[in-house]
């Protein structure tokens, strides 16, 4: 019956985490290490390091790993469902409700007013990754890569995925 516990623990950790997966990491740590004792603190940190080295959402990578470690593939599925399903279903239902009133001036006003908040939130995430990057590779490396990326994306219309692959190659050669 471990899969039930996996489902519930990962659901709790993610339901109380605001700000996307990264915000839920401390909560998952509490559930996995402190409460359930599925892993030691060191094991969790190692796993987190591996997770950060791989692409994709972080919360689901942690859920998949811990779930598999505790309960095999069934455990991984249960932990993933607990992580993803509640918030995803809530979003779909909420947007369905809003769709119905799309033409009302209230919903239109809400759509409009939310833009500046999203802009600020995106700006804050930008700042976090900018600072992290300058601290790791220095200002000039950052500025050079960022300028090239901006130019290629905005003025050459290069697909973002290609830019990321190019940055990988550059980083693997020049930043290692």
């Amino acid at each position, binding site marked *: 019956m471990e899969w039930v516990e996996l489902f519930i623990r990962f659901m709790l950790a993610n339901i109380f985490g605001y700000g996307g997966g990264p915000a839920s990491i401390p909560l998952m740590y509490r559930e996995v290490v402190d409460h359930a004792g599925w892993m030691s603190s060191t094991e969790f940190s190692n796993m987190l390091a591996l997770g950060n080295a791989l692409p994709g959402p972080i919360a689901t990578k942690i859920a998949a790993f811990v779930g598999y470690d505790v309960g095999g593939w069934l455990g991984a599925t249960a932990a993933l469902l607990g992580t993803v399903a509640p918030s995803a279903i809530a979003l779909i239902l909420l947007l369905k409700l809003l769709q119905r009133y799309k033409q009302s001036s209230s919903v239109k006003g809400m759509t409009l007013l939310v833009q500046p908040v999203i802009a600020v939130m995106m700006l804050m995430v930008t700042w976090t990754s900018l600072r992290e990057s300058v601290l790791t590779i220095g200002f000039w490396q950052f500025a050079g890569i960022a300028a090239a990326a901006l130019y290629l994306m905005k003025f050459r219309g290069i697909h973002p995925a290609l830019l990321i692959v190019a940055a990988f190659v550059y980083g693997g050669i020049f930043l*290692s």
Partner: protein
Amino acid sequence: MGEEAGGALTAKEAKPIEKTAAAVRYKELCIALLRTGLVGYGGGPATIPLIRHEAVTRFKWMDDDEFGEVLAIANTLPGPIATKLAAYLGYRLCGWPGGAVGVAAHIVPTGAAMIGLYAFMAFFQSSPIIQGMIAGVVPVVAVMLGVMAYEFGEKAVKGLGLWLGVGLFAGAFALLQLAGLHPAIVIFAYLVYGAFHHRVKARWKARPRRPDREGGLPWNG
């Protein structure tokens, strides 16, 4: 395959994407979400610009305004952000099964990689090449996030007018960054005012003094 998706899409039949065959929609959905899951570095929030690129620019499932609205509502709810978006895009294209397919395409490859690569973890952590590759990607992610922030700001100014747009932006910054309020509280407060915004604006324009200003250009340039 087509029938199960029908219910979710009846309201928006005019859009071209809903007219394409279910198989095509599933294929596009999988391509877009596999791709964003595999190249998105820095967790879900850093992947948002990539998802927007696929949904708005590449496959044109929705316009920018709708994506912004979805993103905003998604931010008021807790939980991982990328999977919420993946689920909604899947649902929007192919109904509930699409939601499940979208999330799976986005998270299964990296989840499986996590389990499979555990044995090689020491290599990942010590390899300077891999560390260098990750360091190379962060500036690109920062640029994508910055561009998106700018575009949302631009849209706010367009829709709300220069002064109100900038004022509300500064207000949101003060509340989020300086006062450290929870994003959900700030979004909720803005949504509540937003529900009355058009009425307030109408009353403001219809106020008795200076009748010469009504009709022509409101605040938006």
